[in-house]
């Protein structure tokens, strides 16, 4: 049910999107484009290059969903959102899906009427300090100046941590990651705190990475994941299972390169269901049967996405850690696909 609303001469433009109904899946299909809320620029997770091509770990999840729903991983419109505007953008239907390093918390689930459908990155808040500061634990940071980004859960965690340990600090609030890094490097703060992945990414891109250490304390749980509007369960399922399909693909060794091959040769019933060779699992989501196969072919499995954007060998250089598959001692675990 797409009904266009036109406003005078502006009707002439294509500015006007449709009415967002309750069924996001139908809207996306009718629009032929997935609206994906993203970061304004976070290296490795979601940032555009000089010609406007978005790339990153979170960005690839959006592309996977677009490939599953629309059949084309490039039919995504990335809407940059800030800490303040991100949830409103989702609630009001400005975006269909928010993949922007958002932490799953109970109040966001309940009060803000959002649904976190999965956790695509398990993170925790940490501290980075310069090595010559001679600090080996966050508890030694009494009286330190700490850089934090505003509009995130990290400032609440920070306040709680220092209070619990009965030590004081001086907060310096900054608006984005690159500004925080500049301040930290200039010595305007003793410690920089954000998600450990962000710290590692920052540290990796510093000219003198060996002079900075990430302290051992992880002071919070930061499960980051894709968010959809509350009350549209079918759309939530589509996003959740697109993500799980990528996980299962990694578990079963299906990659973007060998997906056709595996499809032709596999004897594993779950892989067959996943790739649409048997059963009608895709259709049950309101998609076609080889929807998830397209996702895997377009962006690769979870492991490929990880290693391409943020994994070891990239400039970000993150270890899998908690985000390894459950079979390898991590937390990434997909329910059975049946």
């Amino acid at each position, binding site marked *: 049910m797409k009904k*266009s*609303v*036109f*406003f*005078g*001469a*502006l*009707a*002439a*433009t*294509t*500015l*006007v*999107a*449709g*009415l*967002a*109904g309750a069924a996001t899946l139908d809207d996306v299909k009718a629009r032929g484009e997935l609206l994906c809320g993203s970061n*304004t*620029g*976070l*290296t490795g997770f979601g*940032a*555009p*290059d*000089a*010609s*406007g091509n978005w790339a990153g770990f979170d960005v690839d999840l959006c592309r996977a969903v677009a490939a599953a729903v629309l059949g084309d991983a490039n039919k995504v*419109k*990335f*809407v*940059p*959102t*800030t800490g*303040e*505007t991100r949830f*409103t*953008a989702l609630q*009001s*239907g*400005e975006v269909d899906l928010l993949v922007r390093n958002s932490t799953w918390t109970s109040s966001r689930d309940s009060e803000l009427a959002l649904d976190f459908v999965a956790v695509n990155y398990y993170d925790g808040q940490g501290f980075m300090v310069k090595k010559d500061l001679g600090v080996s634990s966050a508890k030694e940071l009494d009286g330190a100046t700490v850089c934090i980004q505003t509009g995130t859960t990290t400032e609440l965690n920070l306040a709680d941590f220092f209070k619990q340990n009965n030590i004081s600090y001086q907060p310096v609030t900054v608006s*984005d*990651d*690159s*500004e925080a*890094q*500049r301040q930290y*490097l200039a010595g305007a703060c003793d410690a920089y705190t954000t998600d450990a992945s962000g710290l590692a990414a920052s540290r990796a*891109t510093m*000219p003198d990475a060996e002079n900075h250490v990430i302290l051992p304390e992880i002071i919070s749980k930061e499960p980051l994941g894709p968010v959809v509007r509350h009350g549209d369960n079918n759309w939530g399922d589509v996003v959740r299972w697109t993500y799980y399909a990528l996980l299962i693909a990694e578990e079963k060794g299906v990659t973007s390169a060998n997906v056709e091959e595996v499809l032709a040769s596999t004897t594993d019933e779950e892989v067959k269901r996943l790739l649409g060779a048997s059963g009608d699992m895709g259709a049950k989501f309101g998609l076609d049967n080889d929807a998830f196969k397209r996702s895997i072919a377009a962006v690769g499995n979870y492991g490929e996405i990880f290693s391409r954007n943020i994994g070891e060998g990239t*400039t970000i250089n993150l270890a899998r850690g908690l985000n390894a598959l459950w079979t390898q001692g991590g937390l990434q675990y997909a329910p059975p696909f049946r």
Partner: protein
Amino acid sequence: MAQGFTRTEILPALPPPITERGAVKWMRENLFSTPLNIVLTVLGALFVYWIVASSLPWWLNSVWNAESLSQCREIVQAKAGEGATGACWASIRVWWGAFLFGFYPPAEWWRPILAFGLLFAALAPVLYAGQRGNLTLVLGVVAAFLLVTLYLSQAPTSAFVMVVVLVAGLIALAQVLPGKLLWFTLVYPALCFWLLWGGSIWSPIVAMAGFAVLYAVFRLTSPLIGLAPAAGAGIVAAALWWLYLDVPLLSALHSMLPLEIRSINSDQFGGFLLATVIGVTGISFSLPIGILLALGRQSDMLIVKTLSVGFIEFVRGVPLITLLFTASLLLQYFLPPGTNFDIILRVIILVTFFAAAYLAEVIRGGLAALPRGQYEAADALGLDYWRAQRLIILPQALKVSIPAIVSTFIGLFKDTTLVSFVGLMDPLRGVTTILRADINWKGIYWEPYIFVGAIFFLICFGMSRYSMYLERKLKTDHR
């Protein structure tokens, strides 16, 4: 009688003493005339020296070709020795497209350029109404500018054909009927939107046809039911046209004759393109609203006056940033559930309200500057309110207000940088943030700020000089 000596010819004048001529005199008079002036001069000279001495090496060591900031630094170190600093303009070289156009596809850059050039062609008939020579001059300059920049941006041949045909047509029209060029100004908004956003050529035409419907209904019914009801009927008819006939007609026409250019999503707008689009649209749509508000504020009708004053004072009393946050966070609350449209359009709507309140005050100033005799003369001629406004009052009031309108526009253009706080890619903070998140250029900050600041300065300074020139010109007309 003693014969006194009388000089018979005049001596040639001696040259003035060394302290009273040339550079020395000038310096004595302009730099060292009093002790206070000597102190000020010395302080000023020291300040200039300090600025130059501290920043000159940085400018001299500029690097124009590099892949990343670290490479830049290596080149500077190699060239000027350890510890030297230098500007890394290579970052601008790589990113200048994003600063100017955002992520607008490079193959389509000719479209914003064309729209920008034609903007002046559309402004000319307003500024030089009926002056054949000036109009031709402006159109000629526009044509030259467009041909050069389009060539530089590697525009397709069709763009050149379009420019030549359009500008030649306009110049021809300027020769024959210079007054009718105003029609181009009226059509320009639709043309501009089509060029920028692309899509079917029929959509601007069908949308503009709504205004034609409005006018036709107004003209047909006004003899029967009077002016005000006819205007109402016209608006209703136009609204019906846009709501119900626009879409089917559009698809019918498009299927008959599919003429279209590539459609560009507004999320790809950014940089100075975005600033210009928001600034120019805001100011031009706010002009009619501002006029109505100013007239409302001057009105004798209590309710109309209260509403106008309330609106003006509210909008002028809150920071623009809260209005932008309203656009991004609250506007959806106020519209029917499920309505959702583009953030750029929402920002433009709020910026238009913002500019309208400021323009209303500017125009009120223009209205107040008119001598009372003008109003009385209009009354004495038996003109009714709208005729008096249209024929006597507004033309004079608007003319007086032009410099102030230009200043408002400069202010608004500078304020468009605030849209970065709602996630749009303005040149100053939006594009710069993305550039600074780029892994190659992490840690850069002076160069993009200086680059963007310089462009803003050129544009705003140029406009303010022009408005001063206009002010002088208009002053002589009046006194």
